């Protein structure tokens, strides 16, 4: 009884409609007729009831005869031979006259002539053209319904099996004719009530149940008298897609948040830069192998140089006022005027140092920005990617602080151990490589460079010497690692399915 109650409470309106019909009918077409549902609705209702073990569905395929195009026409207008005979008289008439009287097509005329000749219903002679008059059996054939006519008057579709005896003869005859009959496979759906179903059919369904709560019911208070259908809340529902940020944006926003929380001011700037800002201001020697064409995207034209370029030139040449020997070459203006896509965000740090005042120290800056490398795309190289940059301009800053800031940052990124290794960059001294320990893979992963800016960088830009801690870290490794992406191109593939379904950055 409890089972039955549960089922009744969850019945869908369609199920409620078909249930009464199930006490009388078993076959789908009959069920449709009896319940007033269309076949799609009825099929859905039956399927749900079958899911609830109320009934079983058996579907069998049977061969049925249905009327084809001409069949439908003759079903309404009668067979053409009747029209043909009606147009005849006991005198010969030309075929064209018969055609215009009977309104039959050339095909039909030909068919009728053959057929009626066999039945001796017409006589034919050939003069200038074909002439025809009623034959000895003509009137009889006209007046008496033929087997074919009788067959055609029955109800279609008819199962092939049900055609027997004289009907079979008529069927065979009509089948020869063009587009009159055809045989189709028909699915016949028959349901059988289970013992539970038999009880359900007899049970009281409890009057009207309501599918939806409407504003009307709420306004009028009629909801009080309604029974609400219970849903099957355990089944899945069709998917919908919300709006979202790109997963990479989520990670970058988190990274930015960390630096903001640590008291850093964000730096932004151009992607297109002069070699001056990207390289020379950072004391990268003009004949450094990394400056060669293949690593950097260059643009046409010559950049305008800021005033301090002459100071930088001097530092390159002989160290200027920095206490350095310099690179000992003649600085090339042409080289420094080249235009390129920035190869590191350190260019922003260089620009930030200009105009920073002593009284504003200590000052801390960061950037999360795109950088460019002239490489073809492959599974581990992108030609544009993000770098995380930071500088601390603090008269009291030292190497231990550098490790401190980076350790803080990586702890918040989920890596608790940070290691520094000696490295070399032309603009920092000491220079170091930063590794973090991967807790699952149990190995060190290399994330980028850091160091203290050389006086050759700081003095011309800032105007005085001061320790400037600096780092430029690649985030690709950490981001791909988080989402278990092995091909770095997947980050910016913009596959909508991936973007919709990717889990969020949940740190």
């Amino acid at each position: 009884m409890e089972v039955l109650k549960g089922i009744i409470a969850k019945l869908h309106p369609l199920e409620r409609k078909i249930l009464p019909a199930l006490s009388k009918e078993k076959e789908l077409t009959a069920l449709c007729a009896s319940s007033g549902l269309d076949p799609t609705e009825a099929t859905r209702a039956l399927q749900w009831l079958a899911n609830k073990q109320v009934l079983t569905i058996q579907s069998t395929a049977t061969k049925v005869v249905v009327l084809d195009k001409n069949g439908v026409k003759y079903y309404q207008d009668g067979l053409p031979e009747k029209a043909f005979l009606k147009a005849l008289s006991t005198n010969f008439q030309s075929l064209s006259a018969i055609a215009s009287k009977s309104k039959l097509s050339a095909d039909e005329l030909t068919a009728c002539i053959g057929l009626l000749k066999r039945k001796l219903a017409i006589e034919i002679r050939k003069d200038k053209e074909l002439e025809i008059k009623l034959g000895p059996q003509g009137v009889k054939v006209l007046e008496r319904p033929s087997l074919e006519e009788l067959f055609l008057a029955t109800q279609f579709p008819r199962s092939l099996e049900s055609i027997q005896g004289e009907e079979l003869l008529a069927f065979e005859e009509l089948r020869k004719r063009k587009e009159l009959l055809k045989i189709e496979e028909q699915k016949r759906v028959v349901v059988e009530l289970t013992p539970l179903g038999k009880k359900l059919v007899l049970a009281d369904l409890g009057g009207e149940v309501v599918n939806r709560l409407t504003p009307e019911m709420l306004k009028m208070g009629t909801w009080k008298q309604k029974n609400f259908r219970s849903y099957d809340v355990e089944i899945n529902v069709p998917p919908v897609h919300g709006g979202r940020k790109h997963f990479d944006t989520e990670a970058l926003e988190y990274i930015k948040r960390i630096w903001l929380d640590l008291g850093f001011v964000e730096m932004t700037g151009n992607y297109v830069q002069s070699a001056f800002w990207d390289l020379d201001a950072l004391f990268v020697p003009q004949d450094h192998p990394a400056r060669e064409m293949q690593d950097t995207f260059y643009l046409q034209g010559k950049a305008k140089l800021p005033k301090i370029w002459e100071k930088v030139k001097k530092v390159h040449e002989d160290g200027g006022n920095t206490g350095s020997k310099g690179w000992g070459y003649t600085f090339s203006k042409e080289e420094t005027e080249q235009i390129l896509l920035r190869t590191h965000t350190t260019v922003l740090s260089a620009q930030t140092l200009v105009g920073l005042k002593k009284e504003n120290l200590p000052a801390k800056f960061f950037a999360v920005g795109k950088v460019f490398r002239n490489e073809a795309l492959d599974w581990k190289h992108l030609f544009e990617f993000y770098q995380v940059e930071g500088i601390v301009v603090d008269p009291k800053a030292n190497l231990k602080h550098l490790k401190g800031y980076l350790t803080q940052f990586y702890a918040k990124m989920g890596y608790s151990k940070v290691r520094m290794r000696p490295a070399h960059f032309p603009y920092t001294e000491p220079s170091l490589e930063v590794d973090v320990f991967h807790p699952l893979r149990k190995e060190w992963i290399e994330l980028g460079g850091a160091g203290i800016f050389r006086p050759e960088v700081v003095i011309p830009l800032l105007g005085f010497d001061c320790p400037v801690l600096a780092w430029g870290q690649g985030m690709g490794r950490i981001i791909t690692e988080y989402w278990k992406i092995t091909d770095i191109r997947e980050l910016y593939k913009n596959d909508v399915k991936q973007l919709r379904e990717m889990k969020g950055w949940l740190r």
Partner: protein
Amino acid sequence: MPTITLNKTVFEKLVGKKLPLEQLKDRISMLGTDLEKIEGDEIHVEIFPNRPDMLSEAGFARAFSSFIGVKKGLRKYSIKKSNYLVIIDSSVEGIRPYTACAVVKSIQFDAEKIRQIIQIQEKLHVTYGRNRKKAAIGIYPLDKITFPVTFKADKPDRIKFWPLEAAQSMSATQIIEEHKAGKEYGHLLAGFPRYPYFIDAQQEILSMPPIINSHHTGRVTEETKGVFIECSGFDFEVLSRCLTMIATALADMGGELYSVELDYGKKKRITPNITPTTMKLDFDYINQRLGLNLTVKEIVKYLERMGYGYEKNMVLIPSYRADILHQVDLIEDIAIAYGYENFKEEIPRAGTIGQEAPLESFARKVREVLVGLRLLEVKNYHLMMKEELTVKMNSASGGIALKNAVGDYNHLRNSIIPSLLKTLAENQHQEYPLNLFEMGRVFEEGKNTETGVKEIDKLAIALCHEKVDFTEIRQVADVLISSLGLTLAVKEMTHPSFISGRVGEILVDKKKIGIIGEIHPAVLTNWKITTPVAVLELDVEKMWELVNK
């Protein structure tokens, strides 16, 4: 970065101590070199470009041995006086004006030593010598040469000798045109009326730098017991240092160094010069930068670990070190000797106030509104193909060209709309609607900028589904603009990428801030997109200015 291959047995002998494998690996990497791999008896190490003196077994072992505390301090080398003379003829002026030379004797070359000396020469050529442009090195068996040697220059067709790796004698012109080395390095002599060469007292040509040595005198073999070394180029200091790197490495391999007198006409010089340079240290500065409290004694100890000497309050810097420009370079070496692993992390208590860049923070808020409108953010590259920006968009203007891109993406985009169409084209099989947005930068020519390029932060939105139309994209624009407290108007315009009569400028306070409309079917067909698309593009910076007005 250059990688050198060390023979482990030779290396250990030079170092003077055998370390367990794990410790060896750790120490190599903490010295400031990158251990690539150890394979049997071969150690592959990557050397940073500031330490060309470590590009040989001997040089690397020397640094390593000091670092682990076996042979510390300034390495002493003695140079015997000799009568070897090299005359530098004035004809090389303006072509390849300088050379620095040395003689090394009592060294029995075998296959292993020959491999080492070839490695030094090759690695120095590529790195410190900048592919022979800055410095070219020649090494010759001493017994084949009669001193004095002359360095001079002559017209190419008057120089004739049998170069290495050739079947017979060739003229300089032939060498440049036909010889493998000539083809590779000939550009370094291009445009000069005369080519430089070394020639001995017997009129035997030794070499034509920076191209090739002679067959007769230019190959070190297992019979060789002494060598003559020359470095030629444009900066005597550079050449002298380069020579010292090779000479000291050969001395470490067991050779005896002999001086060579260089007769520059008015000026005479003697090389190799192994006199250390000196530098004064500011101990407070060191401790301040490193955050340590090292005593003078400790600092001297660490300096010795890195191969320096310390006398009379001065640091003695070995002559082969090319990278000491400033005191900070010594500080790094002190830090390496102290051990990078021994620095404890520390965060100063000084308070600073964090601040997001205003435009970035504005963009973040805009993004939130768009996500609320159920738009999906995509991120495309700023670099696109020219065809994507022009032909496919039915448009003539097409971003800014790069000069040397290796891939097909060789233009900076001038609009985000092509990026969104590209994304739509690649996602046609997905569930609709495909409603996307992207925020990023576009590029235009800009007369008043440093680089001639103007960069603008923009936002573009594309709606794509069967029934999308102008009204729908306009609704999105209205929601966004009104969420900023602004009101927009649209003024009809024409644009080749849009359906005529269904495109307009977006105006706020009569200021043009963007474009909105339905994409032209011809453009959609170019992208092979079979569902209608309505888009808008807005200038984020202008929006921000209007918000602040």
